[in-house]
């Protein structure tokens, strides 16, 4: 029993709801939300320390032991992801302080961001598959509102699509959980894993696992990503950054968790399908990223490429490739948040996201230029930044297992990622300055704090890889050997 495990979702939810009482006091809301997120970050660092010292931390809520109650399970992967999610949320919140208008502040934008963080952290920490569904819904409901707040024409169109897609996939999720419950007779993930390991993964169970893969794939933007570019380019920059950094990653986490813990027994079917879907995702995402000439679209397609890349590492499912996948997942949450914040700032300053109409920003915004340059290199995986190490480990894992074609595809898409972000960089920062100082739509000064914060992390994660690796290794242990996770839940 360790009550600390509940705090990363308790604090954001409690403080987020308490903001309802101060609807018009924006300054107070900002203080509460900011300090609450900082507290969440501190708690999750303590959690990482505890997990690294004394193994997986479990909290049986209400004192009901597993498998009867709902446990919260903080293994190293969950603890790391909770920490990174809270840090990125803090950056997006600070960014939002400057860039969110009256019409959103007054309609609970800050409480919703906090509740979204609660949903994300809860999904990472829960050890019960139905509870996972509940936290998915907490996250999705707040994202529906954040997406539609403001009520612009494009926003409403994209919100309707987004809600329909997610309602369909959520109902399939419940259906799959129902099947799983009737097969195994339990909802506790460790218990399901134990029973499937005992009775073997038959055809029916594998079919259910494919249904779950489809559900999580829809949420993660794996192959079935047709909804993603539209809905990620509709909301304002801080909210788009929050979505890009967190929402798809929860889907990826769910795939990693279910296919390492519950369904690892028939990789020749499940993992092969996962492999091909990830390859197709990378290819289609790269085509989108190089085809468009609008900043928001290019960045949204970059989200898709990295989803494919991380799941390539998951599909290979060796220790090396999973190490890479977790590392790259952490890198990608930070880097996607950063590049969406910076890209959003460019759009705000120029007043348009059409690349051909922006030019020469370097003259007025040298710091923004350099931040964008570093984050673009990190995204493409140029050493010594954090993207490189993750990519290297995933590719190493893939090549060792003989997946040369897939490794080739991922290398090629990495180049196309570099091309697509450099296209933004060259077109918007270089060239003749089109805007005079007075014509700018926004000063873009508020970007500096979150920009520096996340850039420091991207650089630090790359240079300090040596120090981070032991934690990543510990995160991968329960993925390679699910018995560790099961024993921790039932101890």
């Amino acid at each position, binding site marked *: *029993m360790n*009550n600390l495990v*509940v705090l990363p979702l308790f604090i954001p939810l409690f403080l987020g*709801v308490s903001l*309802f009482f101060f609807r018009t006091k924006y300054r107070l809301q900002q203080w509460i939300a900011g300090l609450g997120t900082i507290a969440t970050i501190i708690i999750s660092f303590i959690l990482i320390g505890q997990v690294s010292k004394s193994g997986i931390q479990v909290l*049986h809520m*209400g004192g009901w032991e597993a498998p009867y109650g709902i446990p919260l399970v903080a293994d190293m992967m969950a603890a790391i992801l909770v920490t990174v999610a809270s840090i990125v949320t803090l950056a997006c919140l600070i960014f939002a302080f400057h860039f969110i208008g009256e019409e959103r502040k007054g309609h609970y934008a800050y409480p919703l961001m906090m509740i979204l963080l609660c949903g994300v952290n809860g999904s990472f920490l829960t050890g019960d598959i139905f509870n996972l569904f509940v936290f998915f819904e907490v996250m999705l409901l707040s994202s529906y509102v954040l997406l539609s707040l403001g009520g612009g024409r494009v926003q409403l169109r994209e919100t309707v699509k987004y809600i329909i897609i997610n309602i369909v996939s959520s109902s399939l999720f419940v259906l799959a959980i129902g099947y799983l419950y009737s097969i195994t007779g339990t909802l506790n993930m460790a218990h399901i894993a134990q029973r499937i390991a005992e009775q073997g993964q038959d055809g029916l169970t594998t079919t259910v696992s494919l249904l779950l893969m489809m559900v999580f794939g829809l949420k993660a933007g794996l192959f079935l990503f047709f909804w993603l570019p539209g809905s990620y380019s509709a909301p304002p920059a801080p909210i788009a950054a929050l979505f890009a950094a967190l929402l798809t990653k929860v889907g990826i986490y769910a795939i990693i968790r279910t296919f390492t813990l519950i369904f690892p027994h028939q990789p020749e079917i499940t993992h092969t399908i996962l492999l091909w879907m990830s390859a197709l995702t990378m290819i289609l995402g790269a085509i989108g990223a190089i085809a468009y000439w609008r900043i928001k679209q290019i960045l949204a397609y970059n989200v898709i490429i990295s989803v494919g890349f991380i799941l390539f590492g998951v599909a290979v499912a060796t220790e090396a490739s999973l190490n890479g996948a977790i590392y790259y997942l952490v890198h990608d949450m930070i880097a996607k948040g950063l590049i969406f914040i910076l890209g959003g700032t460019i759009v705000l300053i120029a007043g348009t996201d059409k690349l051909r109409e922006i030019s020469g920003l370097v003259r007025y915004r040298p710091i923004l230029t350099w931040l964008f340059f570093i984050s673009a290199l990190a995204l493409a995986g140029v050493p010594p930044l954090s993207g490189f190490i993750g990519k290297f480990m995933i590719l190493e894992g893939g090549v060792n297992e003989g997946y040369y074609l897939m490794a080739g595809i991922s290398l090629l898409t990495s180049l196309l990622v570099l091309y697509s972000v450099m296209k933004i960089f060259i077109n918007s920062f270089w060239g003749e300055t089109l805007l005079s100082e007075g014509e700018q739509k926004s000063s873009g000064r508020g970007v500096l704090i979150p920009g520096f914060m996340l850039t420091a992390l991207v650089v630090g994660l790359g240079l300090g890889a040596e120090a981070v690796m032991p934690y990543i290794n510990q995160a991968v242990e329960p993925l390679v050997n699910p018995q560790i996770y099961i024993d921790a839940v039932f101890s």
Partner: protein
Amino acid sequence: MKFSNVILQSAAKVLVFIIMIYSIYILFAGHNNPGGGFIGGLITASAFTLLYLAFDVETVRDIIPLDFKIVGAIGVMLALLTGLASVLLGDNFLFQYYEYVNLPLLGKTGLGTAFVFDLGVYMAVVGTTMTIIRSISEDE
């Protein structure tokens, strides 16, 4: 054509009390028997909705002058604080304390902290449902 609501209004005045009492019974039955804060909250919300159907929006707002968003928020916080209380006492989050007490009039009664949690859920459900119904009905 002017439609007369006399029968509906007269019936509603009686029915609302019956429904409310039943919802509170369901709320108290909650943690040991079928029932609880969620379903109790929905029944209460249905009583309020009956008032909306029988009378008009302004009248009902005078009868129940509550900001239901705040009711919902208080409910969620109450439920969460119940969980926190058990943490402060050194037990698992959301642990239930249960005791039999001899109360005047009621005699031996079981009191559980799960009820406080259920009350939070009840308020959250009433708050949310009524916020949804109000924002739809005021749309015209």
